[in-house]
Structure formats: C-alpha cells, structure tokens
C-alpha cells in the first residue's frame, strides 16, 4: 500500500478569527430557544405511552374480580429468559369459581430476568397476563425485583373482558343441568 502524504491547508483569515463558527453556533442555539420543548421534566411529567406499549408483565382480574390466570404454565414455558415461575393450585370445590378448577398458588416473575418481550401475553389462553404501562421498576434487593402473585395483581388491576368465557360456561352448566 502506497502512502500518500497530504499537505494540511493553511487556515483562512475568517477561520482564524473563529467568528463565523461562533455565529453559526449561536444561530442554532437561538433557533432552539424559540422552538417547542422536546425533553420532559421526568419524573414529574410522564410521557403518554403509545398503545401496545410493553411495560412490565402483570396479572389481571376480570370485571367481576375473578383472577383470570388458571396456571396453565404456558407463559412459564414460552418465556425466553425463564423469568416466570408458577406453582399451580386447585380451586376448592366450594369456591364460587369452582368451575374454573385451577388457579395459581404462587406466581413469580423475576423482573431482573424479564426482557419485556411480551411472549407471555401473546401465549396466554386466558388473557390473564398483560404487559401494561409500568416501565419504571426499581428496588434495593434482588428479592424485591421478583414480583410475586400479590404484587402482580396489584400492578395489573382489572381489564375489560370481551369474552367472559367462564361465566358462559357456568351459565351453560346451569342451563344444561336443568334440561337434562
């Protein structure tokens, strides 16, 4: 490879005085001074999140307050970093939702592992796990960052349910029992 020596060009007078550079810089600064803000006073101000935003995964209840998760463990299976850990449990036969039969005894999501991919939400056959708007999670210990079932329901709250399939099932059971 040939080496080509280049001569550095001498600076012009204007360049040596720095003035055009300073004026150019000030122009940009002044222009932004009168333009609308693009930054935000976080955390006092919070951004409006676009629909479909994927924050922390949470567990939700249906409008009647029934916990929707049936501990099918599909989300545990699909979760790429294995952040989810479920202990399945049985709903006692005398509970009002006994016909659902199954609910998680414990449900943990390790938020230090979660990569916010949303696969759990996508795979859930019960629409029980949702990545909602919670994007700022902090804690002082690792244990704090493992969300247990109670915390997941606190974060999740209630979401509208267009199907209410278990209510329909119960209704069919009552109707079926009457006709047979």
């Amino acid at each position: 490879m040939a080496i080509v020596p280049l001569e550095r060009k001498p600076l012009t007078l204007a360049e040596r005085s720095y003035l055009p550079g300073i004026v150019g810089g000030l122009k940009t600064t002044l222009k932004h001074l009168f333009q609308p803000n693009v930054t935000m006073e976080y955390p006092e101000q919070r951004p409006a999140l676009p629909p479909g935003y994927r924050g922390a995964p949470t567990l939700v209840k249906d409008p009647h307050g029934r916990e929707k998760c049936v501990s099918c463990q599909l989300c545990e299976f699909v979760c790429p970093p294995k952040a989810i850990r479920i202990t399945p449990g049985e709903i006692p036969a005398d509970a009002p939702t006994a016909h659902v039969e199954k609910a998680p005894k414990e449900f943990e999501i390790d938020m230090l592992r979660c990569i916010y991919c949303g696969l759990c939400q996508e795979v859930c056959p019960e629409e029980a796990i949702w990545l909602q708007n919670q994007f700022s999670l902090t804690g002082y210990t690792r244990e704090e960052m493992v969300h247990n079932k109670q915390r997941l329901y606190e974060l999740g709250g209630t979401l509208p349910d267009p199907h209410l399939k278990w209510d329909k099932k119960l209704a069919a059971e009552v109707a079926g029992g009457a006709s047979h």
Partner: protein
Amino acid sequence: MIAPPKPDLVTVNIDGKDIAVPKGTNVIEAARLIGVDVPHYCYHPKLTISGNCRMCLIEMGNPAVDPATKAPIMDPATGKQKINWIPRPQIGCATNASPGLHIRTNTPQIKDCREGVMEFLLVNHPLDCPICDQAGECKLQEQATGYGRGYSRFIEQKNVKPKRTQLGPRVMLDDERCVLCSRCIRFSKEIAKDDVLGFIDRGSYSTLTCYPGKKLENNYSLNTVDICPVGALTSTDFRFKMRVWFLKQTNSIDTESSVGANTVVWSREGQIYRITPRRNDDVNDTWMADSGRELYKQVRSADRLTTIKVNGADSALDIAINTALQLAKDGGVAVVGSGRSSVEEQFLTKKLADALKASTHLVSRVGQGDKLLISADRNPNVRGALVVGLISTMPEVGPALRAGLSSSVHSLASQPSTQAGSESRPHLSGLTDLAAAIDAGQVKTVISIGEDLAAAGLTAAQLGKISIVYLGTHANATSAAAKVVIPTLSVFEKNGTFVNQQFRIQKFAKAVPGPAGLPAEASAKAGATDDLIVLAGLANIAASDVAAVWKLLAAEVPALGTMSYANIPETGLLLDATPFAALPFAEGETLHFKPAKS
C-alpha cells in the same frame, strides 16, 4: 420392533409401500412399521379391539380374483393384479394383515373421514386444555392438530357434564372430556379383572361411571389414567401439580417386587412428580401397580437420612469409613446384604464381606403375589445377589409364611385398597443364623446395607450386643442403634441394574440428585453418598461408579462376562437361569412369568 421373519409372513401394501408382516398383524401396527401414522383412540395394543372411536378409518382393498376360477384378474394398465377397493372406509384397528391386503390412508376420503370424526368428538368437548392435565400428551390435541379441520362450525350450546367425579381414591373423572373410547372399561375388565366401569345414558349424554356401590380402587386403577387418550381420567396425586412438558423422563425399574416392572420417572429440577409404566412386552406390557407409583414419595420423606453420624455425632465420610473398619478389625463381622441393592452394590457387598472375612446374610421380603405385576418376593433383586455370588441359597422364609403362601390362590389385584399397596405388607425374615451367632457371641459387628435388622427379626437385646454400621436411606430402629450411619441414595438417585424374577437384568438410571444435606454443613459430611462409593471405600476397591464396577463384574462374574452397563438394552437382557433352577423361589405366577415346576 420388527419381528424376525417367520414362515407365516404376509405382504401387505400400505400407501403404495409393500411390507412383510406376520399374518394377522393389526393394520395400525403394520402401518407404524413403515412410519405411517393411523390416528386412533380406542385401539390399544394390549387390550381387545372395540372399534368404537372410528378415528382409524382407512381404505382397504384386496387383490381381485375371478369368482368362478379363482384366477387372479390382471389390470391391463399396470400389468399387476387388480385391486378391488371397498368403496366405503373400514376401521384399521379391526383389520388384520392378510396376503395381498392393500391399505390407503392418504386419500381425500380418509382425510374427510378424519376431519368428520374429529369434528364430532369436539362437538361437546369443553376445549379446556389450559386447565387439563393431559395437555401436552393428549391424543385429542395431537389428532386435532394433525388431522382436524382447524376451525369449528358448532354454534349450538355444548353439553355440560360433571367435571369432578371421583371414581376411586386415586382416579378423578372429567366427563366432558371423555371420548367414550372404553379403554378404561376394557382395562378394568380384561387386565385388572375388576369390572367396575361402564357407560350409562345415550348419545351425547353417555357417561362413564362406576357400577353402583363400587369404586375404581384396585391396585391397578392408575393404568386407566395412563391409557385414557384424553384428559378424562386424571390421577388425584398428579392432578394440577405440574405440566408434563416440563418433566424430564428417566427410565427406571419398579422396586416393589421381583417383577421389575419397567417405569419412567418424571421429574423437574430434582423433584419427582410421577412414575408411569414403560412398555416392555416381556415384563409388564404397558402396566404397573398403583403402589409402585407412590414410591417416589420416600425420596423427600421426613425420615430420610441426610447426615453421616459416627457415635451419634455428625461426621465425614472418610472418618465414618475408618471407624467402621476399626469396628470390623477385631473379627466377628457379619454383612447383611440386601435384595433391594443393585447388582453392582451386591457385588461390592460381596467384595466387602470377602475383605473382612465376614459371613453374609440376606433379608428375605416375602408377601403375597397378586398374580399380575406384584410377585411374592418383594425384593427386586434377590437374583442379582445369586448371580454375583453374594448368596448361594435363598434366604430362609419363616415357616408360617410358607404355609400361607401356598394357600393363597385368590387374586389380590382386584381387591380394593384405599391406599395403594397397603393390603399386603411383606414379611421380613432370613436372619435366624445371624441371631444365633450374635447370641453365641460369634458376631460382634454387623454391617447392614440398608436393611432394618430389627424389622428382620433381631431383638433389641441382640442389637444392643453388637456394633452396627448402617448404610441406608431412611431412619429406622437399626439406624438409631447404629454406631456408624452413612446415608445413601434411593433408587431414583443412582444408576444400576436389577435382576428380576425371569433372570432379566434391567437398568435403572438416576432421575434426580440425592439429598444434599443442610447447606450450612461442610460438603464432606453433608447429604447422602452413593452406595457404591461407600462400599468401595469400605472394601478398599478403586471402583466407585457403575462403569468401573462393571469392568470388575465382567471380569469376575461369568454370567455377566460379555456385558457392560452401557450395552444392556432398555428392555433388559435375559441371563442364564439354569444354575439356579433348583432354588426354592417364592414367586407364584404373574404376568409373563411362570415359576419353574418344583
């Protein structure tokens, strides 16, 4: 498994491929041999054919012959014999291979049939896979994915049926999921000989039920759960505990008796969730007893030994071994081997006894056989002790028991048991020689390989006279009295082999790690140690794993001379039983086993 060629082979043609199979082979099995899946629900290789699910529909044809002359009619287009296809589909499960039989499984008509059958089966199906334990191993899921239409045209209200019917102590029925295949009914009637199940009501209201006043509670009831192709029958023990797709499968052997039923141990992260039978057509077919499925509970039971103790204080393995050898130095040593140890352990036990010039004993564990898959000899591996030479005669059995055994003719399999296996506790004996030697002061130290000497007939006074070295998994009177206690591994936590009543040597593999002891303790004294390591340490042999022991076994035991652990197939290998033919074995007849006439 392709059957070896026999003179009665016939050639059948399945989807255009010719295959030679024994005459009478079921078409589903014949198709399986060439990798063609004929979907089915009610067909089960070990049960009678009922042909009621209609999922296995196939097109069938036979070579055409002239009715009058019986001369083959040739097809001029192909130059081959013409095939007369039956216009309507037939069920494959009730079709047996006959010469020249032609089968088609890939025609539009068959596709249509399968979609139709699937649609009917799913009409009243609750589609509750998320809460169904069968999900992941459900034939309905598999068949719907493989052969279903993929969408539903059903808009009417579905039938609702009871979802939590307890058929027996261990079996729960969800009626909505039942596809009325009758496998469970046929199993109960044909194999368990306890005909308690049946269908009642008609049409889509048909319901599986128990005969009034009866329960599905025989010791084989959980096999119905295994063979139920859908999630209608579930095990109350495994119900809602874990999804099957998380579970690791490890091949193992049922240690309940000398039948040696082949099993699969299902575990996740070091915890066992269930045990199911593994098919072995020469041993247990596809069945096993309920009592054997509960054995995994011993792994984490509260009385599990987890710390090495010397004179009651926590200790380390090398100290424990040295102490044991010190105790043995003065002579008067007896080694009590176990019919529950693996072949490898028994071999090292023999080496240990030789090294210490000790007498050897074996505890016999005899109960009643159930004529199916629990034999009278409740030790899984007495024959292993014979093969490796740990014992040369059978351990003696109490006279009262002998009399009781010969008079037992009724089938225990069909007797009710609320708790699996509780109906027949085996009787332990075989230590009368040892007891006499202790009384005479000839034996001062006893090394027990997992056998509770008190339960096997030694009195507290006799135990008090001797120093005991106890290698075992669980606490008992012997471990309490022992000077040296070394916790060892259960059958689920180690590799090894057993020799069953047919002299079939069968492997079991490690499913879960052994108990690790308390984390606070130093690693040297924590947890349980593999029996082989302890025995090798005691006998001062440098062979402390299965592979190393097998090198010695192959060299020193002629019967095992040509084998290695890795070469034993998963279904076992038959050893030569003739050297032991004269011994008085306790077993009566069981499935695939007839005792030698004596």
